[in-house]
């Protein structure tokens, strides 16, 4: 069994949406679950977030969007992640996301989608199961 490292998570607000309490609640929860969490603050661009993810060598990028702009932002993020060869990172989206869009996001390559009102424990469990460092089975492509 490989040694368990601390999971490093970047929680990001991309775009103009300023509703960040959900992101903060998740940050508190993931820290209580033993993860290291960095928060970008508001109004970040996809490029900024990917650079921070590289510099901080995070295992997970969690993006919170409640403004309905998740689809176009997700596509840009995925493209940027590929350009910068950050492929190993686990990418999650959360926020006000209609059901149809959950499928669309997963098809784009977002690993986990957690609409508002998702259970915090579900999110942390998903991260632990799927993160490269966390060990365990990978259900990303299911």
């Amino acid at each position, binding site marked *: 069994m490989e040694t368990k490292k601390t999971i490093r998570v970047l929680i990001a607000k991309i*775009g103009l*949406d300023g509703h960040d*309490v959900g992101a*903060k609640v998740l*940050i508190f929860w993931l820290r209580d679950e033993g993860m290291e969490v960095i928060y970008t603050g508001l109004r970040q*661009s996809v490029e900024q977030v990917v650079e921070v993810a590289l510099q901080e060598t995070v295992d997970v990028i969690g993006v919170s969007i409640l403004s309905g*702009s998740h689809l176009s932002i997700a596509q840009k993020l995925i493209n940027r992640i590929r350009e910068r060869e950050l492929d190993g990172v686990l990418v999650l989206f959360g926020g006000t996301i209609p*059901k149809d869009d959950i499928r669309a996001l997963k098809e784009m390559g977002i690993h986990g989608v957690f609409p508002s*009102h998702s259970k915090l424990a579900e999110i942390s469990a998903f991260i632990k199961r799927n993160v490269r460092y966390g060990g365990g089975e990978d259900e990303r492509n299911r």
Partner: protein
Amino acid sequence: MAKKTGEAEVRPVVSILGTPVKCFYGPEDLPDFDYKEKLNDPGEYPFTRGVYSTMYRSSMWTMRQYSGQSTSDSTNERFKYLLKNGQTGLSLAFDLPTQIGLDSDMPLAEDDVGKLGVAVDSLEDFERIFDGIALDQISTSFTINATAPIILAMYVLVAQKQGVDPKKLRGTIQNDILKEYIARGTWIFPPEPSIKLVGDLVEYCNKEIPRFNAISVSGTHILEYGANTVQAVALAISIAEVYIREVLKRGSHIDEIAPLFSFHLPIGGRDFNFFEDIARLRGARRYWAKLMKEKYGAQDKRSLQFRFSTGGMGGGLTAEQPLNNIARASIYAMAAVFSGTRSLNLACFDEVYAIPSDLAIRTSLRVQQILANETGVADVVDPLGGSYYVEKLTDEMEAKIGEIIGKIESDGGIVKLIESGAIQRELARQSYAIQKRISSGEKVLVGVNKFKVKEEERDLEVYKTDPETINRQLQRLKAVKENRDQGNVESALQQLESAAGRGDNLIPYLFEPLREKATVGEIIDTLKKVYGTFKEPTTV
């Protein structure tokens, strides 16, 4: 732990204030209760029972559903649809770029154009929104803060174009920037110049558009951010005092400006408690009346009246079994009516998923219409007045509001606490605590942690933004820029910049750039040169 009283198990209940709630209340809970001093008749100081004597017997509350669609044309259509269906006031939502002063073609804007409301780049967009709607016949509420001065100036210009005297304009502009630093994040400039702009707008409305509510200090977003129902009201009042002091220092008298202040307060949400929510608003009316009279020396009755609209909060609504949200919203609406609200916007059952569909928005309107027309709840003013329980709670709520505001003052004031991020930190922590109570099942949410169904009902038809929105908006913006005199735009913006540098009231300097078709983004960029931009404090 449940206590035993004779044979019956008694379920323990604790109020939002942390005090144990008894099974019933009686005269001993209100010793030396003086009707005149504590309540008085509705419409009389201290206005505990309501700011008007006849309330809904002379005019029903304004039923206002928040709406704003991607573009100016679709918003215009939606407005006409709502007016046709009996809505009595309009409420306009703006997209995020408009709210934070970015044009649709600016970097960082593109993903958000037309997403949460209408995109307004120039005066032409604004004219289209109100096309065919006579501005002297309606009242309009604008949920806008950092760019509020620009939006108000546009409304005045549209009125003038329609031949309507701006003095006849009715409505409310939110113009409450401080809560944006706490909860919603649509700030642009640092707090100090932002407060100055709030003051500019209040001062301008006082002189030129006296029937318009120049400010609606909002507790709703603060509640969604994690404040409890009492904190949300207390913080809103504390913030209002900052603006009041700003305008007073310019030489206005309290009785000139206090009547321009209105509040938008939450009803419902995750901490909802029917009687507590009502008592808190009754207590707030009494607190405000005393504050204005005793601290600020106000004498005009209108200064002492704590006037508020309410927002039935989406935070208490659930993604699970979404039709249950209609029941929740109905109960919020009833609490709002018993609180004496002047206007009500009710969250829609599908709001957890997206911008409300036509059906959802109409249902929220129907809930209000049913209350007003079928139930009798609006027939008697303050029907809960005199209830031992409600009066006891009202006393406690008023005291708690004072205590919270006093603590803020002794900690250096709300502006300092916002700049350092202290308030944001505290409220985010509280939000986390509530979330954990829901997760553990300690706090029951029907359909979420109790009475669940196996099959999630997530198949609602939700409103979708037309993906062509951005292209249409970009073409229009391009056309605006091509068909204007660039020299005139620049000189108008130059004058605006000089006025900002001098510290003049900026509202009169906004008309010329707008007439010359300067964009919202260009105006804001001009002001950023003078005011700078806000840097977020670390809060987690």
